[in-house]
């Protein structure tokens, strides 16, 4: 009997609370800090070059096999030649970010990524660098 009264007052108070659900296309979702969006390649701000040297650790760590990396040897050093990411397969697990020793990969806050064909979901090195603007969380906050 007491439980019924307790439930009644909780339900009555819920009438005056703000609803938790959002009308998605009309209202933007508030993204919480640390949420996992699309991966992006980071740049070194001093030299404006890609930090990644193409070691391939992320490729090994990826459970979905959606990353493929090619490196090249030039002037006694390894450089990143090609970086392919298939977003159609990516599960946004974040293993690539954890595996990277140089912290060259980061997950941005981008979440609206639907496309009309699968080919446009395959991203190259330049596409991944261009995602820099989505790294700021407040960009998507309402």
């Amino acid at each position: 009997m007491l439980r019924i009264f307790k439930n009644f007052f909780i339900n009555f108070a819920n009438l005056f609370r703000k609803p938790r659900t959002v009308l998605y296309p009309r209202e933007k979702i508030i993204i919480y800090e640390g949420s996992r969006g699309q991966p992006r390649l980071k740049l070194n701000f001093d030299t404006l070059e890609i930090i990644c040297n193409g070691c391939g650790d992320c490729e090994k760590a990826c459970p979905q096999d959606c990353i493929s990396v090619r490196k090249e040897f030039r002037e006694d050093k390894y450089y990143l030649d090609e970086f392919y990411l298939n977003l159609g397969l990516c599960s946004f697990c974040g293993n690539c970010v954890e595996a990277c020793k140089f912290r060259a990969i980061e997950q941005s806050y981008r979440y609206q990524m639907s496309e009309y064909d699968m080919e446009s979901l395959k991203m190259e090195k330049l596409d991944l660098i261009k995602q820099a603007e989505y790294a700021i969380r407040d960009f998507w906050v309402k």
Partner: protein
Amino acid sequence: MLIYLRKIGYIILILGINLYIVSFLNNKIVSRIELRRGYKGYKKESPGFPFSNSLKYIAKENPFSIWDILIFVFSIVLWSIIPVSFNLFIVDSSYNMFIALILFILLLIFKVFSVSYSKYNFIISDFLKRTAQTVSLIIPLLFCVLSIVILNKSLDFKVIVNSQYQYWNVVYQPIGFITFFICILLQMKLMNLSEHNQFLITGNTSKEGEGISRMVSRFSGYLIIFFLIVMLNILYLGGWQKLYMINGSIMTGLKFYTILIILIILEKSVSGISGFNKIINLNYKLILPLSVINLIITIVFFILKNVYFII
């Protein structure tokens, strides 16, 4: 003749407007309790959703049986006898309540028939279970009404309301009031108006499938709940008696909506009572004994007052 036509018009108008408001309120309150928005639209568009939902029911092709027509007719005819306000009734008889209760029981029986008739297997399914549920709810309700009739010595709604000019009947019969209230709550659970009780599959009185028959079922479900709330108002809460300066009709409306909102919230709060056996158990172990105790106390007081002249 014109007066009757005007009265019929008023009654249908009041029923229609209240049905629209209540179906909107029901959806909105249930969704807000669950911290959802409800009716998926924005503030401007949402009042139009009950209308569009009714169009959705009509658009679906589904054959309806003779029981649906009977339910529709009886659920409207019921309102010719029960007075919404002090002059809004068509049949003025001193046995008002008796006729209203018979119509109500007939309506429930038709509803059970309509629900039991399945489109898919063409036989009457789960008829006994459904009948047991409805009967178990009707018996305590009738006991409550009987004790009120003994108290006021009349079967006329007008006399019962007028006898409450000083004190409402809740003061004399609190147990009866609680029993009646729980009966309405369980009836509301059986009608499944909030459409979220998925566990109550066997024995509920909501129609399967989509189409006109389902719309009629929901329509009659709402009208049965309206009828019970108006009965509660008339029997226990003073009906259309005016309170201080507030008009009688306004008081009826206020009481109606207050009870309805409390019922909708309570229906969501009592989520444990779902399923055939629990409702039957609750009926025969709690509500029926309460109503019998109430009736016995009333009869004892009646005999002491009128036969032995002690009180």
